[in-house]
């Protein structure tokens, strides 16, 4: 067992859990807006949300690194006005993984919104319910598989994140060193056994998560977004 195995694992799971919870809050309004807008700019917005799917993670990491550094206006604003120094911190890699995982949350949710029959929303409106009440009590409860799908994909995807975290966070044990980076470090130092401990953990975790997802959504035909 590597010396800081538990510390690294705790950090990895904390990053995945925080990313998932925050992205649920952020992804629901974004997906709702994308599913319901009639704006001509929708393809543009969808492209922005989905960009992290096709960009190399190092590209995202690189620009976030620049944005957070003192050499840019944003970075200076963050550190001088808000006292936030994000590079090489947990908050920094959390922000990075929010950007990186956005499409994994938004896409299943958007599909979920689209699949709830329009007449349910309209029925709720004719019963005097506001958009927010309708969202909370009619739409979301009737798209639980999509919510589960988005949450699980985001969680699992954050576990496997490498490029973004490495660019923004580096590899500071206990602060930014997550399991996928630890594997890389251990291999660099030729500690194959220790790398294997992390790799096997991630493998088992990812497998169990996916089996769980497919088990709980086996009745739902729209689940296979992965």
């Amino acid at each position, binding site marked *: 067992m590597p010396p800081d195995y538990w510390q690294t694992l705790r950090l990895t799971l904390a990053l995945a859990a925080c990313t998932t919870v925050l992205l649920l809050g952020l992804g629901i309004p974004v997906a709702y807006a994308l599913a319901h807008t009639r704006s001509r700019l929708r393809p543009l917005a969808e492209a922005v949300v989905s960009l992290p799917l096709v960009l190399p993670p190092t590209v995202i990491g690189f620009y976030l690194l620049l944005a957070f550094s003192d050499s840019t206006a944003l970075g200076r604003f963050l550190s001088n006005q808000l006292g936030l120094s994000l590079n090489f911190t947990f908050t920094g890699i959390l922000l990075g993984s929010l950007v990186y995982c956005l499409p994994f949350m938004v896409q299943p949710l958007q599909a979920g919104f689209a699949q709830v*029959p329009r*007449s*349910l929303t*309209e*029925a*709720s*409106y*004719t*019963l*005097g*319910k*506001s958009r927010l009440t309708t969202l909370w*009590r*009619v739409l979301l*409860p*009737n798209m639980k598989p999509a919510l589960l799908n988005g949450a699980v994909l985001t969680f699992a995807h954050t576990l496997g994140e490498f490029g973004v975290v490495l660019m923004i966070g580096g590899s500071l044990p206990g602060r930014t060193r997550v399991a996928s980076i630890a594997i890389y470090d251990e291999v660099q130092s030729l500690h194959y056994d220790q790398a294997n401990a992390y790799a096997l953990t991630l493998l088992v975790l990812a497998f169990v998560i996916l089996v769980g997802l497919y088990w709980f959504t086996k009745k739902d035909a729209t689940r296979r977004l992965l």
Partner: protein
Amino acid sequence: MIDLHLIKALHTAAGPRTLDVRLTLPPGEVLALSGPSGAGKTTLLRLLAGLSRPDGGFLQVEGQVWYSHERGQWLPPQRRPLGFVFQDYALFPNMTVRENLAFAAEGQPQARQIIDGLLELLELTELAPRRPAALSGGQQQRVALARALARRPRLLLLDEPLSALDLATRLRLQQALADIHREFKLTTVLISHDPAEIARLATRVVELDLGQVVRVGPPVPVAALGTTVGGRVVAVLPGGHLRVQLGGSATLVEVPAPTGPPYAPGDELALSLAVVPARRD
């Protein structure tokens, strides 16, 4: 009293048309909308409910302006005291029958009594703890009706409420609708293709075609119809015969085509049945 003049662009199979309808409904009237598909019936119902926005005109209900193009006023559906029964029922799958009604009755004084009363009226008390997925079509339709009434609406809108049901269920629900109208005296607008149904329920019929009113008048009385069953042409057979699907059922009959313009598959018609005693050998 409902006073309306509603204008809205229609996209029909025959190309773009304009829905342009002027009507006045006295309180308690049951108005049937009929006409071929694409005539604008559902559009008119949605404009009344506020689910679509008109392009012009006005809509005034009991002295309250729901829409006025001139004054730039439009009341969103949430603020219109109406009940809408959707063609696909639109019951909330995540709620039981009782919860569907409770959701609708929220904010009403004595919501519990209203719900219990409606469950009893529509014979749903036994089904109250079930979810919509565990109900038959006719049962779902009764829940949809009860839910629409739970908000104590002033106006009831029904979009082909019985079209997907078999004949027996249909007749039972027509009776339920007639009872409800007697009890609540609601101004009602319903879309229907079935002359017998219109005769049983409506006080007036408006026939629409391509967005225009082509006929307004009292429904053809049931007696004149004899016993009629609505049907849909599924095939035109050689020798001037039609294969017709009866009501919402799977039953097919072959009948001689009526004189006049030729029928095509998909056309709606009404069959008059002669009732004779069954032979007992």
